[in-house]
């Protein structure tokens, strides 16, 4: 399966996945309007239509969707991200649970409203003026022109600046790990992934894992694991160190 040709039918976009990516990167499509869960759903559907698991496609898809989500998160909640990043893992989990609960409740409330509306289908009332009602003269009490100046002044007040300086710390570029792993592979043919990421933050571990998938996709490494949750072993392939163009692509994307 070629991930880039995945046909999508979303509210905001209809067409192949690679066109969506192009439009997003050219900023012709606002990522905020894109339902990423819808993309995942479509991919899983396509995957389910096949008999065997296409690991190659899964890897590529995971990388692309993770990048999309990261971009979307940054665009959608710049302030939120800063707040969450300051939280301890326990607090962050608590915050996540709180938000999920909030959204669940709103979905339930929307459902309640929809049912209520259906129940009220036979309720008719007048929206416009009464046919023979006197037409009220729409006079306005005298106004103070200073009020006009005041609202314009308020419109000219700049919103508080959100500092994005710390963001790079919490979202290290994938390229950083690509370089690190490649350097490591030049010295050693095999290394233990868990050892390498020991002591890193959760975000850094996640990005490191993305880098791993990227290397695997470029056929530069093989990944093996003796059992689920056992240490992940990384081994160099013959092609490693061949092409560096992927790195460039990642630098662009995570800048």
């Amino acid at each position, binding site marked *: 399966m070629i991930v880039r040709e995945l046909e999508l039918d979303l509210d905001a976009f209809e067409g192949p996945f690679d066109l969506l990516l192009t439009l997003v990167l050219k900023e012709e499509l606002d990522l905020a309007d894109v339902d990423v869960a819808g993309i995942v759903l479509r991919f899983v559907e396509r995957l389910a239509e096949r008999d065997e698991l296409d690991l190659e496609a899964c890897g590529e898809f995971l990388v692309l969707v993770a990048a999309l989500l990261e971009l979307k998160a940054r665009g959608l909640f710049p302030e939120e991200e800063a707040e969450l990043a300051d939280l301890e893992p326990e607090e962050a989990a608590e915050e996540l649970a709180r938000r999920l609960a909030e959204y669940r409740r709103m979905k339930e409330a929307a459902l309640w409203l929809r049912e209520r509306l259906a129940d009220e289908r036979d309720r008719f009332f007048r929206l416009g003026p009464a046919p023979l*009602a006197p037409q*009220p003269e729409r006079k306005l009490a005298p106004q103070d022109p200073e009020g006009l100046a005041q609202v314009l002044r308020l419109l000219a007040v*700049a919103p508080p600046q959100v500092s994005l300086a710390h963001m790079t710390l919490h979202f290290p570029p994938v390229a950083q790990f690509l370089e690190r792993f490649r350097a490591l592979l030049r010295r050693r043919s095999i290394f233990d992934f868990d050892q390498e990421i020991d002591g890193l933050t959760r975000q850094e571990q996640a990005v490191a894992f993305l880098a791993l998938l990227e290397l695997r996709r470029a056929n530069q490494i093989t990944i093996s694991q003796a059992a689920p949750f056992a240490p992940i072993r990384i081994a160099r392939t013959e092609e490693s160190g061949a092409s560096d163009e992927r790195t460039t692509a990642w630098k662009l994307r995570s800048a």
Partner: protein
Amino acid sequence: MEAPLRLVVANPLDRLARTLEALLVVTSAPLSLDELSAAAAEDSERVETALRLLAERYSEGRSGIVLERVAGGWAFRASRDAADACARLFERPVQRGLSQAGMETLAIVAYLGPCTRPEIARIRGVAADSAVAGLVERGLITEAGRGSDGAGGAVRYRVTALFERVFGLESLSQLPRLDDLGEDVDAIRERLHAVAAQRTA
């Protein structure tokens, strides 16, 4: 549920009369006999009979709601006895000032005008359609040709003479100065656009 059912059978006109009451209380324009018959799914003769019945029930002195035959058909109106109360009711909205949306839109048009709805929307960060429509309806702003980008451009708006009267201004040059925002209209416009861009960033 026996009794009411018998009642309906005994006087089916009553049911039709209730349907007509409902139609007349919902409408915003007088309803013709044809419209009433079609909606009630009854022949117009029976509808006319029911209307006569209703006209008697809803008549001056008997009810505050009066059914009246007018040029376009039939409509409810308020009884003349209640004219004073109705007048007091309609006086009330007069006291109400302008909404925040209206005030912001008016200030933009007054200081930067003539300007288009897209520009107002950009500065406010919100679609300006209903605010503009409300101000046009109140006669505070009016259309002033199309945008500078030619005949195909968006409609531009400027404030009216009524605006000057309501705000007690002899001319727009009497608007309070905004030197703190910029030395001229262009500078103020630029500043507002810059802030708006920050807000949506």
